[in-house]
């Protein structure tokens, strides 16, 4: 049973990655899971300058989901290159760096700075709902999303993944725009914009007022969007949003994803990334299949559109 995939030039042992912001830089989870058995590690969103993130409460539990408003707290790209990246050299798993900028130029500069060995690819975050400038603004307009992708592609030789925001009317249109701008792969979904209110204090639960919804609650929306995007583009798609088990992951593969990422599930089950991959292997065996690619997009055999 072959689980290996080549994702736009990034060779992965399994199609199961960890989603940015949910797995730290990797070592945080090393006590629980063999990092070498993950498909790829996508590290926390990195910005040019260090960011302290949002004040006040940053997470809230919701039915079968959670809201987060971390606000891209991170030590900045210099610190990442100087101190974090070297610590990841021992891990035999591709490290993909998720980047966020306030301007198109910042994205380009980040890409240039990260065009170093040890970085297997760049994931462009144009969909963070938790920061005031940039972030989601780039992710809700085709033109600015395309501009970001071009700036990044122009500054790196690495494979570039563009991560889409689900908070749009037409996700397929966004996908076509970033593909036309040269992205090597597309990942989705980032979080849905949500809000919770404390009925005793009458205040928003989150310091940032609104936050990003993730976890099982969003899975049906994520599967639908992955299906729509995979039909709209030719580049590989990485599916995520509420994956807790191999069964969930198989849904995304059938919908058209070439790989998947596990996010919120890591908080609940720190071994999720490896267990999902093992479960996919078992599923392939049960179905008499030999390679995970035999699943990709197969729902289209039946959707008749």
């Amino acid at each position, binding site marked *: 049973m072959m689980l290996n995939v080549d994702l736009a030039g990034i060779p992965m042992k399994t199609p199961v990655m960890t989603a940015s*912001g*949910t*797995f*730290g830089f990797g070592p*945080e*989870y090393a*006590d*629980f899971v063999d990092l070498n058995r993950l498909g790829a590690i996508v590290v*926390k969103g990195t910005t040019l300058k260090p960011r*302290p*993130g949002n004040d006040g*409460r*940053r*997470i*809230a*539990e919701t*039915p*079968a*989901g*959670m809201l*987060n408003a*971390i606000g891209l*707290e991170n030590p900045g790209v210099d610190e990442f290159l100087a101190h974090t990246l070297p610590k990841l050299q021992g891990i035999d798993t591709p490290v993909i760096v998720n980047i966020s900028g306030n301007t198109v130029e910042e994205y380009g500069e980040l890409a240039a700075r990260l065009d170093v060995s040890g970085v297997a690819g760049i994931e462009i975050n144009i969909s963070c709902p938790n920061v005031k400038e940039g972030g989601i603004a780039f992710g809700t307009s085709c033109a600015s999303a395309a501009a970001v992708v071009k700036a990044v592609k122009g500054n790196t030789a690495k494979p570039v993944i563009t991560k889409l925001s689900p908070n749009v009317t037409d996700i397929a249109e966004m996908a076509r725009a970033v593909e036309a701008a040269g992205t090597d792969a597309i990942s989705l979904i980032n979080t849905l914009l949500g809000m919770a209110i404390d009925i005793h204090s009458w205040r928003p639960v989150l310091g940032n007022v609104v936050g990003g919804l993730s*976890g*099982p*609650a969003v899975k049906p929306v994520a599967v639908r969007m992955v299906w729509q995007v995979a039909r709209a583009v030719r580049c590989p798609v990485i599916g995520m949003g509420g994956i*807790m088990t191999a069964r969930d992951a198989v849904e995304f593969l059938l919908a058209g994803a070439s790989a998947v990422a596990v996010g*919120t599930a*890591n*908080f*609940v*089950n*720190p*071994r999720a990334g490896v267990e999902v991959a093992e479960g996919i292997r078992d599923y392939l065996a049960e179905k008499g299949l030999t390679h995970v690619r035999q699943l990709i997009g197969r729902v289209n055999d039946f959707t008749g559109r």
Partner: protein
Amino acid sequence: MSKTVSMALVRDQKTIGPLVKLLTLEAPEIAKNARPGQFVHLRVNDGPAPLLRRPLSLAGADAGQGTLTLIYRIVGQGTALLARLKTGDRVDCMGPLGAGFDLDCERPLLVGGGMGLAPLLYLAGALCPRPVAVLMGGRSQEELFWQGLFAEACRHIHITTDDGSLGRRGVTLDLLPELLAGGEFDRVAACGPRLMLEGAGRLAARHKIACQVSLEDYMACGVGACLSCTCAGADGRRRKVCADGPVFWAGEVFAL
């Protein structure tokens, strides 16, 4: 020091105060590595709602027996689900997490409010037979079932209640200046509401006594990966309550 996630066996669960439960788990790997001040992160359910784990301080750990003691108050759906656990059940338990208390002291004063007394109970046991004093605060005498729990390990127990129904009327911070003025302590270790911790840190600093505080925050991962729980350090750098803490030197997280 290594952390694990495992299906702990419920040895026993009992009610020890109003809505307060004492849960004894068998989790040898965790018990072996645990230190006072650390916590475990529990799944309360196997379905997707409630989704997240619940952090609970270790109120005790016995490496020999392989057991952990947790003391918690039922405040919401997660703790209500935990309260249903019965002897023989299993619960998914991750730990030990976080950084514990520093034990390098001779005459410690432990200061705790409400459920903040749970980690201090473990600490008291670990510091014993050194002369441990504890200052405990609660709303009324009903909440001070803690007294019995601390009796074994502590030489002096000081109590405040909001309504004066037990010990001194007031809050811990009202009694603390007096206790510190005596000059008999070389360490303060505090756990409870933030304002209490800050106050304790300040008073201790004034008396030049090293002070550790145990913070609390909303947590998703519990291992430093998600940045849900970070707080601003006194130096401007952020700290992760779950991984750098929950126990910090007071000066690290408060401007004293």
